[in-house]
């Protein structure tokens, strides 16, 4: 073990840090875009029913193909990775935001309207809070996927935990493969836990019961 750390420690820690930042940056951008887009789509549910399936088609393009294509256009820069991960992360959040808001009962919206809330106030005080459980579920799905997709960054030589895995695969070094895979799994778990804490902080427990 100490031998391993002496040999790969530096490489591992820098890979973890790079990986972490890929995920955090991509998810942050993806969340902002998806959240706004989800709200916009919820204002026009008829068009959303056409737009959402089109976006979901992108999700079916293999990550490896997409990141490769983007590499050809954008070059070997970190933004290539971030753009690719962001695009993949958008859909689950977008879909859950949209569905969460659409499913808020008309009765609540009418009560809010009757109280004299403006459409924006209804959105921020009633619709978004009630859609929050669904939105956070989307965020968790995207985050966990992004941790694993970020491995692909190494494919175009841009670091992250994938670097260890690829190196391990090409040199037939199982220790290296595991050294990349285990931190990635742990990272996914930790992100998931962090989101759980966020959920507990944001949603009163009386609302959590019926919305997993």
């Amino acid at each position: 073990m100490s031998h391993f750390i002496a040999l790969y420690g530096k490489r591992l820690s820098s890979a973890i840090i790079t990986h972490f930042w890929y995920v955090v940056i991509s998810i942050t951008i993806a969340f902002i875009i998806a959240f706004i887009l989800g709200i916009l789509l919820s204002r026009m549910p008829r068009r959303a029913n056409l737009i959402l399936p089109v976006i979901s088609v992108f999700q079916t393009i293999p990550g490896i193909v997409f990141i490769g294509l983007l590499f050809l256009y954008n070059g070997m820069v970190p933004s290539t990775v971030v753009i690719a991960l962001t695009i993949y992360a958008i859909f689950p959040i977008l879909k859950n935001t949209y569905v969460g808001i659409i499913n808020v009962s008309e009765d609540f919206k009418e009560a809010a309207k009757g109280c004299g809330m403006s459409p924006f106030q209804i959105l921020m005080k009633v619709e978004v809070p009630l859609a929050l459980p669904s939105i956070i579920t989307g965020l968790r799905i995207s985050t966990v996927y992004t941790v694993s997709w970020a491995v692909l960054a190494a494919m175009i030589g841009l670091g992250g935990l994938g670097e260890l895995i690829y190196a391990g695969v090409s040199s037939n070094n199982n220790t290296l493969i595991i050294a990349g895979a285990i931190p990635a799994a742990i990272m996914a778990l930790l992100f998931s836990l962090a989101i759980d804490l966020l959920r507990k902080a944001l949603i009163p427990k009386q609302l959590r019961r019926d919305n997993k």
Partner: protein
Amino acid sequence: MIRFEHVSKRYGDSLVLDDLNLEIATGEFTVLIGPSGCGKTTTLKTINRLIEPDKGKIFIDDQDTSQIDKVKLRRSIGYVIQQIGLFPNMTVEQNISVVPKLLNYDKARCNEIVRELLALVNMPYEEYAHKYPSEMSGGQQQRIGVLRALAASPPIVLMDEPFGALDPMTRRILQDEVSKLQKKLNKTIVFVTHDMDEALNMADKIIFMNKGKIVQMAAPEEMLENPADDLIRSFMGKHSIDNESLPQTAADFMRSDIYSCYRNRGVREAIQQMARRKVDTLLVKNLDETYAGTVSIKNIRNHGKDMKTIEPLITQENAVSYVDEDAQVCFDKLLNGQDSYVVVLNHDQTIAGIVTKTSMAKSLADAVWGDSQ
């Protein structure tokens, strides 16, 4: 005062409100009632412009509501809907202070309002303020719904079947509470329901609607007495004092557990019977069971001491009716005459029973409260 002037609303082919004209006085508890689809809820929602009429104008205190900003207008009018209306993501305190916050009241004032209102319905602040709607019973939730509507002290409160989802007991209690609150705070309340019980219990004025029009607008008493048409009468159901359909006869109200004796009985025996049964007259029948008349204790005392039988003391002055005679005619005989009861005979002249003032009172009670057995 709320005033509708020629208000119409159309959804596709159906005319939901048909040239509606009405006035609701300040401080009055007005109930809109009618069959589903009659336009009562639409009428309510046009007041705070949740629904915009196609034609016509609505004035609140002589101000045309279409000229007031919608959002502002709604903040100045309380609104209560079925129990689902509380925001599940907010505590009781947050729910009640929704409108005050929209009006930018400061925190201290919001808190003061919440405390005052909770005290009004005897829900201790410490116990309830921080609960979420899902932690309370339907009745409690709806109390909060009412309080939320009152929070910014609006002069007008609209209620759209607020107690529809509650059990009858809770419903009754809340009706009484809201009536009390209304009197105490002197609010103008417009209340939609399809339950005539509720309307009669709460309203100063009932507006009965059908097919987008007002069929009748009257105080509960008057509507009970003179329902404008059969539809209203059927809504009143057990409440209406119904003197046209279902004519009732004397037989429906008579007591048949009566005492009688034959005309050849002795005076002493008759006195004993009266004493035993605590009555002051006896029905007397002939030997063939037909009605002979009555004998009273007064007659016996005045003349009967020396007589052997009651036969000479029998009088036929007591009012008589037949089983199939209209109950009203029978009651008239009872009320106009001196007698404490009317003898009801079968057509073969045998005694069927008697109608007393007690049976008459019971029949009135039935008509007013329904068949309480």
